[in-house]
């Protein structure tokens, strides 16, 4: 959208007159006029045209009206992507809103439709900012606000962030949003905590608490009412019951029935007594009869038993005698068997002794034979041992210590070496005789042969025949002599030690020793052969064999025959022993049979004796039996008589148990009635008390009241819960919308803003944090300053730049929007204003910017199209 013209009539100071601004073009347009020329009036009128419905008269419309009254008329021409239009609005009298095609003048929309048309122009979609971007003198937002509020606002926007954010929010519903959110939050936090729980002490929590308390109270009172009603019902039941049982007639009736039953019971009891007496008499008679019967039959049985016992005793005695005879026979056999065993065993012993003696004689014979051999061996061994001892002594003298020969060899070698060396050093004498003079020279009497060489040592006297004696003294090589002497001495010592005269002798001795040693080994092996366990063992063996050979005192006889004899004797011993054992077993059986027979016989005898004792003399047996029979008959008669009497009494008997039961029943009925009456009276008294208490406290009334209150409290709780839900939902919606708007605009605007900032503050740059969108620092003159309080100038510049950034954003979105500035740069210095101009021009290349200003001089440098206000009268 672009504005091309603005006309107004009857607006504020233009009472009855009008003014117009035509030819507003692309890019920068400047309307510079001194104060009170109607600049701000134009601005306000334009604002009203776009944002105030023609039907209303809010403060901002009232402010357009001249003091003298009248109907303000505002008209603007504009072009959009759809064409060129003329908007007209008149307020108060003749209020109207019209949209016409500018060129044809054709009416496109009026009244509400026109308003909708205008709305569509200034609304960037449902969530976009207003289509016109405004900045007023010293104000950073477009809202109307109180002075005090402005102050608060200023303080609140002391950082770049809040400034920019404020701009964004101003265009995205910010301040009212904040207020609405704050109001919502405040109401909500009165009810619940930040986490959504009912707030302690708040109305919601109180209502919940009250509901709970009342519910508890209601429950308690309800229980009490139920209790009261139960008590009432119970008492009524008790009264009915008491009326039934607690009457004099009932009591009398119960008493009479009981008396009758008791009389019957005592009659029955008397009868029962006499029956009992008769019964015990009969029982006694029966007892007597039984004992008489027992006595009689006992006596008869004793007699029968006596007879049979006597027979048995006689039989037992015979049996016993037979057993005794059998036993004695068996004992005889045993004795004979024992004798036979004894003799057989004796014979066996003798035979054994004989056999042993024969064997001993045989062993002595053998020992004597081995003794001769052993003695021969001993002699040999003794001789060999002596030989060994001798050889060992010899060997000891012959043997040389190990290594001595080698030592001797070495010394001999050294000696020879020394002598050879001495000889080589000594001067040599040689004579080559002239012919004829041979043998003319001798030394110490020995003639020197032709061409003989002789070493000279020490002083040598050479006799030269026919000439004289020549003495030659050779210097002694002392060193050699001393070594030689030392070696000789050492050799001498060694030879002495070995007791030999030379190395050869030593070696010979060594050979002798080796031969002797071989012989010694042979001798030792021979000794081993004769006495394998050593000589002592051999001697011991000899001693033993001697003793053994000497022990035989019998002539060896036929050993086999003796052995066979012993076998026969042993067999006989076995046979007789077995016979003896069998006889023993038999005698044991017969002994026990004898004991049993004796015991049986004795038992019968004693039983017979005892029975005879109890029966008394046999002569009286008959008389006694007759007496007992008579007694039995008599007792039998007595018993029958008593029995008959019992039967007679029993036939007439009254049922005592029934009488007793009846009496008990009637008594219990009476007791129960009495008990029940007492109990019911007591219970009724208790209930009276309970009912009285409850009644006096008007419990039902209290219950009813509590129920009403509970219902009320629950309603209130529900209302508050709903309130919480509503506020929570509202807060959610507001926060969601706000954060969405921020996401939508804040970052993109910042992005647009940064290059503009660079343009304005070429000596400074503001850095924003990409993540938090917070300004980090201001870099100025190479100094990194913390972002702190900004000057008023900086703030207004930021406000303008923010709008320009917005405009860029909108233009990029295919929605070009004019930016309108009304004395927007009052705090800025000239230098800064120029930079702002640059920014504006840069912006204006794709953007319509309309600047209202009173700073004619300063803005002369801005350039751009200069707008003028001209008088105007509407056509109608």
């Amino acid at each position, binding site marked *: 959208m672009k504005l091309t013209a603005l006309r107004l009539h009857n607006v504020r100071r233009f009472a009855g007159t009008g003014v117009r601004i035509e030819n507003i073009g692309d890019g920068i347009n400047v309307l510079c006029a001194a104060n009170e020329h109607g600049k701000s009036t134009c601005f306000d009128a334009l604002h009203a045209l776009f*944002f105030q419905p023609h039907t209303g008269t809010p403060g901002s419309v009232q402010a357009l009206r001249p003091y003298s009254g009248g109907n303000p008329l505002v008209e603007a021409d504009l072009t959009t992507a759809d064409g060129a239009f003329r908007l007209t609005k008149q307020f108060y009298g003749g209020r109207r809103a019209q949209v016409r095609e500018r060129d044809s003048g054709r009416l496109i929309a009026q009244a509400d439709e026109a308003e909708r048309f205008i*709305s569509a122009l*200034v*609304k*960037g*979609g*449902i*969530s*976009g*900012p*207003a289509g016109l971007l405004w900045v007023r003198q010293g104000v950073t937002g477009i809202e109307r606000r109180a002075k005090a509020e402005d102050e608060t606002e200023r303080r609140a926007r002391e950082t770049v962030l809040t400034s920019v954010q404020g701009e964004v*929010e101003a*265009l*995205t*519903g*910010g301040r*009212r*949003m904040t*207020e*609405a959110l704050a*109001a*919502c939050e405040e109401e909500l936090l009165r009810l619940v905590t930040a986490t959504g729980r009912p707030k302690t002490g708040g109305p919601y929590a109180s209502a919940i608490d009250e509901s709970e308390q009342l519910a508890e109270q209601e429950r308690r009172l309800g229980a009490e009412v139920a209790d*009261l*009603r139960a008590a*009432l*019902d119970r*008492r*009524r039941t008790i009264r009915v019951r008491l009326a039934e049982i607690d009457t004099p007639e009932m009591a009398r009736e119960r008493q009479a029935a009981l008396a009758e039953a008791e009389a019957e019971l005592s009659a029955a009891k008397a009868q029962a007594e006499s029956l009992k007496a008769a019964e015990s008499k009969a029982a006694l008679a029966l007892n007597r009869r039984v004992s008489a019967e027992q006595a009689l039959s006992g006596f008869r049985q004793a007699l029968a038993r006596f007879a049979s016992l006597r027979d048995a005793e006689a039989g037992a005695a015979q049996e016993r005698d037979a057993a005794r005879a059998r036993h004695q026979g068996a004992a005889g056999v045993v004795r004979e068997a024992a004798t036979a065993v004894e003799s057989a065993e004796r014979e066996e012993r003798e035979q054994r002794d004989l056999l042993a003696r024969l064997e001993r004689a045989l062993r002595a014979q053998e020992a004597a034979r081995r003794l001769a051999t052993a003695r021969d061996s001993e002699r040999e061994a003794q001789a060999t041992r002596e030989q060994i001892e001798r050889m060992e002594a010899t060997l000891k003298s012959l043997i040389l210590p190990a290594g001595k020969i080698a030592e001797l060899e070495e010394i001999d070698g050294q000696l020879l070496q020394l002598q050879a060396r001495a000889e080589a050093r000594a001067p040599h004498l040689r004579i080559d005789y002239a012919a004829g003079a041979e043998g003319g020279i001798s030394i110490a009497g020995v003639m020197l042969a032709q061409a003989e060489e002789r070493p000279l040592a020490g002083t040598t006297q050479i006799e030269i025949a026919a000439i004289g004696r020549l003495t030659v003294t050779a210097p002694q090589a002392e060193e050699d002599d001393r070594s030689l002497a030392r070696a000789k001495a050492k050799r001498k010592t060694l030879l002495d030690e070995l007791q030999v005269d030379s190395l050869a002798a030593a070696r010979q001795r060594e050979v002798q020793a080796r031969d002797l040693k071989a012989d010694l080994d042979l001798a030792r092996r021979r000794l081993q052969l004769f006495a394998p366990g050593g000589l002592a063992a051999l001697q011991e063996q000899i001693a033993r064999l001697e003793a053994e050979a000497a022990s035989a005192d019998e002539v060896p006889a036929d050993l086999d025959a003796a052995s066979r004899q012993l076998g026969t004797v042993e067999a006989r011993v076995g046979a007789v022993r077995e016979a003896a054992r069998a006889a023993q077993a038999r005698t044991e059986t017969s002994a026990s049979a004898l004991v049993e027979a004796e015991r049986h016989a004795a038992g019968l005898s004693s039983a017979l004796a005892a029975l005879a004792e109890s029966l008394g003399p046999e002569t009286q047996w008959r008389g006694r039996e007759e007496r007992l029979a008579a007694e039995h008959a008599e007792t039998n008669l007595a018993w029958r008589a008593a029995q008959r009497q019992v039967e007679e009494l029993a036939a007439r008997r009254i049922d005592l148990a029934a009488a007793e039961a009846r009496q008990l029943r009637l008594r219990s009925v009476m007791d129960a009635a009495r008990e029940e009456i007492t109990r019911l009276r007591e219970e009724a008294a208790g209930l009276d008390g309970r*009912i*009285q208490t*409850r*009644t*006096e*406290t*008007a*419990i*039902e*009334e*209290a219950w*009813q*009241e*509590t129920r*009403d*209150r*509970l*219902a*009320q409290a629950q309603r209130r709780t529900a209302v508050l819960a*709903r309130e919480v*839900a*509503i*506020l929570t*939902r*509202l807060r959610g*919606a*507001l926060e*969601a*919308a*706000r954060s*969405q*708007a921020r996401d939508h605009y804040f970052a993109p605007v910042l992005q647009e803003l940064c290059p503009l900032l660079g343009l304005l503050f070429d000596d400074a740059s503001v850095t924003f944090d990409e993540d938090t969108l917070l300004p980090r620092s201001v870099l100025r003159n190479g100094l990194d300053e913390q972002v702190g309080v900004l000057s008023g100038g900086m703030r207004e510049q930021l406000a303008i730049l923010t709008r320009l950034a917005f405009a860029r954003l909108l233009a990029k979105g295919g929605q070009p929007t004019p930016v309108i500035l009304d004395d927007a740069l009052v705090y800025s210095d000239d230098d800064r204003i120029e930079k702002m101009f640059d920014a504006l021009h840069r912006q204006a290349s794709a953007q319509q910017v309309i600047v209202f200003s009173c700073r004619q001089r300063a803005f002369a440098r801005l350039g751009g199209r200069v707008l003028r206000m001209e008088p105007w009268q509407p056509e109608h």
Partner: protein
Amino acid sequence: MVRFLHSADLHLGKPFGSMPDELRGRLREARHTVLDRLAAQARTAAAETILLAGDVFDTETPSPAVLRQALAAMAGHDGVRWILLPGNHDSLAAEALWAGLATSRPANVVLATEPAPVRLADDVVLLPAPCTTRRPGRDLTEWLDGAATPPGTIRIGFAHGAVQSFSEDGGAGDVIAPDRATRAGLDYLALGDWHGQMRIGPRTWYSGAPEPDRFKHDASGRALLVTIPAAGTEPVVEPIETGSFDWRTLVLDCLAGDEPGAHLAALLPAGPARRQTLLRILATGRTRPPARARLEADIKAIAPEFALLQLEAQELVTECESEDLDQIDHAGALRQAADMLLAESRDDGRSSGEREVAREALMRLFSYCATAS
């Protein structure tokens, strides 16, 4: 000729626990003083007898203060005879109550606690059917059919209970036969239980409560002045005013675009009567947010003038149009939030509860923005 006052359902001692404290006291007091107003009306009409057809007391165990003060008030009106019938709230099951009344009643109080004729005058017999329990389960007036009286005697039936069953479980056992007056040859059947005054037949009436206690009947408290010229002639029945508080329900039918507040002002009672009025405004129909907000504000403003004033607006549908949303904001995040809530309130995919919450949230946002601008 006999003339008497017929009333019932005084419910003395009713607690009104759901009312604000100050009003509760006044309502209870009004129940007590209705005895005086009844007596005054009886005296004015030269009626000697006041029949109280049940539920004189609200509970079976009224507090001693309620009981004693009621008896004292009755005793205070010498020339008037009070005849009390046990109702369902104060049935004969409340032994203590009736025993207490029997011992401490003043001479001018008669207790109709037996289903037996009570002679009111030489030729006038009262035939009471006292409630034996809270729910007797049978028509207690049945005995009236066979109750013999000398010829020419004016027969007055006296009972408490419904003539029509509203229960769905077929428990119609304790419904009083609507034609009992005809069947039992009664000249008049004085009924209690229904709190609104109601004529069942020419000879059968519910007197209604003399002092109303709920919004249900939407009428002021009344009693009946009954004149029976002679046995067999139709009685003359005149309603008389006895109430002190008015319980009214006012249906406010709103139209979208209407100004319900103005509409309401015309319906409200005059200034001084408001103190004695409990008013329930039942808003129905449709409205727009500003009108709704104004209505609420109006009601809030005048509420203190009334004993009780409550707005029930569950039936009132508040509709939002985009111009209403313009009052919140033309665009921007605030408008977006409003649009979101509006869409949510119209979203059939959501539960009605959620829609309602969204609608209310929008109303709230509206009110914030209205106060902010």
